[in-house]
């Protein structure tokens, strides 16, 4: 572990608290899946918290974020309310999407989080477009927001990766793309089916300045994210390849038979929360402050879990809301002949 002199301890205490909150949220989400309370698939990001905190911690509230199916951590780090998120996972009333999206479509437009996505790679194009929209309006309404798009290593083999990066480069859009490489795309090891020298080289070939970073090192992620977000805001799109490792299954149901337990155990030694804790300890931070942050996160997410469990189902009639504004001439519903 790199020793860091002059560590901005307050800054990294904040990251530490965020990472602990993400971890506690993910543990609660996995428990909800095991107990059948979260009825859909749960993709937890345990082991990847430094990417979420390091990147999103450098965004303002009005900046925009697009995430993927493993988006709880990104969404929390962007400032969303974990209570509304957990209710969404449970499909309950008061869920951040009214119970219509679930884990894979978590979104909180109030904090600039424009959606996770159930389609690998699809967020790349939406992010490029959000940045395009911002640029179009910039001269008129002084919009200087930046867009961050986080996707997995699996997304770099889909067409939108090529189209979206080219798009961002030719129009010089205020967007940062982050490939959160957790070693696997579902049960497939990244390197097994990804040709060439890697995502950053692909991005560079399309004219984007790119970098690789140890995604479990919060200090390194924070530093590069800060630089890249500033550059992107100024109209120079950037690409970050953050290497991390998924410590839990692909979904809550995944037994992980495609990788030996010894490998997982070895990877636990490099996980980012303990590494951050070590750095802060070396920097002289009182261990009680770290303990307090961890305990607070645990209590917060436990409360959120219980509150979600106690919440009602959404009213069934809301299934028909928010489809279309356009109504047929004679009035009536657009939900179809039957409804």
């Amino acid at each position, binding site marked *: 572990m790199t020793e860091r002199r002059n560590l901005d301890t307050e800054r990294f205490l904040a990251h530490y608290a965020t990472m602990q909150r993400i971890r506690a949220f993910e543990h609660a989400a996995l428990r909800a899946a095991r107990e059948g309370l979260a009825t859909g698939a749960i993709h937890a990001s345990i082991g990847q918290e430094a990417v979420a905190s390091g990147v999103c911690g450098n965004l303002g509230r009005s900046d925009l974020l697009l995430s993927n199916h493993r988006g709880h951590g990104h969404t929390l780090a962007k400032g969303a309310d974990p209570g509304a998120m957990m209710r969404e996972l449970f499909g309950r009333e008061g869920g951040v*999407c009214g119970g219509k999206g679930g884990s894979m479509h978590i979104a909180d437009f109030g904090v600039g989080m*424009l*959606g996770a996505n159930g389609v690998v790679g*699809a967020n790349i194009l939406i992010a490029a*477009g959000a940045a*395009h929209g911002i640029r179009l309006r910039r001269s008129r309404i002084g919009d200087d927001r930046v867009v961050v798009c986080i996707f997995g290593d699996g997304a770099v083999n889909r067409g939108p990766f090529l189209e979206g990066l080219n*798009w961002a480069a030719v129009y010089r859009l205020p967007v940062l793309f982050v490939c959160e490489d957790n070693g696997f795309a579902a049960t497939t090891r990244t390197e097994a089916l990804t040709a060439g020298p890697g995502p950053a080289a692909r991005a560079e070939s399309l004219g984007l300045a790119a970098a690789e970073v140890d995604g479990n090192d919060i200090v390194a992620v924070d530093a590069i994210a800060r630089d890249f977000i500033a550059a992107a805001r100024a109209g120079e799109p950037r690409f970050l390849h953050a290497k991390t490792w998924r410590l839990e299954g692909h979904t809550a149901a995944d037994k992980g038979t495609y990788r030996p337990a010894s490998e997982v155990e070895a990877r636990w030694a490099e996980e980012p929360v303990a590494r951050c804790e070590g750095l802060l300890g070396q920097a002289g931070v009182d261990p009680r402050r770290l303990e307090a942050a961890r305990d607070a996160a645990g209590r917060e997410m436990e409360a959120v879990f219980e509150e979600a469990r106690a919440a009602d189902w959404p009213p069934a009639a809301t299934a028909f809301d928010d489809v279309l504004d356009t109504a*047929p*001439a004679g009035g009536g519903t657009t939900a179809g002949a039957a409804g």
Partner: protein
Amino acid sequence: MGELTYAQAAREAIAEEMRRDPDVWALGEDLGRGGVFGQYAGLADEFGPERICDTPISEASIMGASVGAAMVGTRPIVEMRFSDFALCAVDELVNQAAKARYMFGGQARVPMVIREPIGIWRSSAAQHSQSLEAWYTHIPGLVVVTPATPADNKGLLKSAIRSDDPVVYMEHKNLWSLAGEVPGDEDRTIPLGAARLARAGEDVTVVSWSRMVHVCAGAAAALEGEGISAEVIDLRTLWPWDRERVLGSVARTGRLLVVHEAVSVGGFGAEVAATVAEELGAPVRRLGAPRIPIPYAPPLEDRARVTEDMIAAAVREMA
């Protein structure tokens, strides 16, 4: 009032809406030079390259970026060139644009107009001739519009641009040069979801849309000489469609024929016919293309067309 072609009418609608609302912009391949059918002619001169935006040949990006741009408050007009090429952007349209508002619990609005020219266009063959409107009527979250006349192309396009819904707007390539009277009034829009009575009649109701409306009207004129009075309704909007107008007409005439250029199997005519049968128990018939890809050679291509004679024969059998 003035005479405009179907293409000019659309161009005028866009120019007026872009003057009215600075958040409206258009993007697609070759738009800076007026678009491949001239339907954007001169717009880049007036509005500049940012608002009449030339894009790479990246249909998924054109569609997907428009979803993001719409989410942040702009109103993109998305040019797909041919509806066939929009198939390269189906995820972005069907999984993203159509779903965003709903799956995010009403947090998102995705106001975009997706222009997808459809239809047989002499010897354009299997990948440049399709009419895939029925696919989109099947997708909750999309509006589907199929204008048949220059006046409608202006008024419906203006409504589509002003709508907060994603609107799949399907112009027929064989209608670009069709000329007709188009009201000049900038405030005149035509509501989405309202059908148009193309020709009044008593004996049978013929429902159609897009170019086929004109073929149906021709058949109805020919039948008049035989003493058969066919009412022709142009649906204009396929989703949401004007059930009231159609059911009201069939309640009077007692029979329904639906005619479209698209393949008959699984076409939107089946939806109209089934609704009329369910609601009124009236006899129904459909006419559409055989289930073959559109061929190239003219005599083969003609086998994929629904003709005036076929329509007249079907009406005669029903009347």
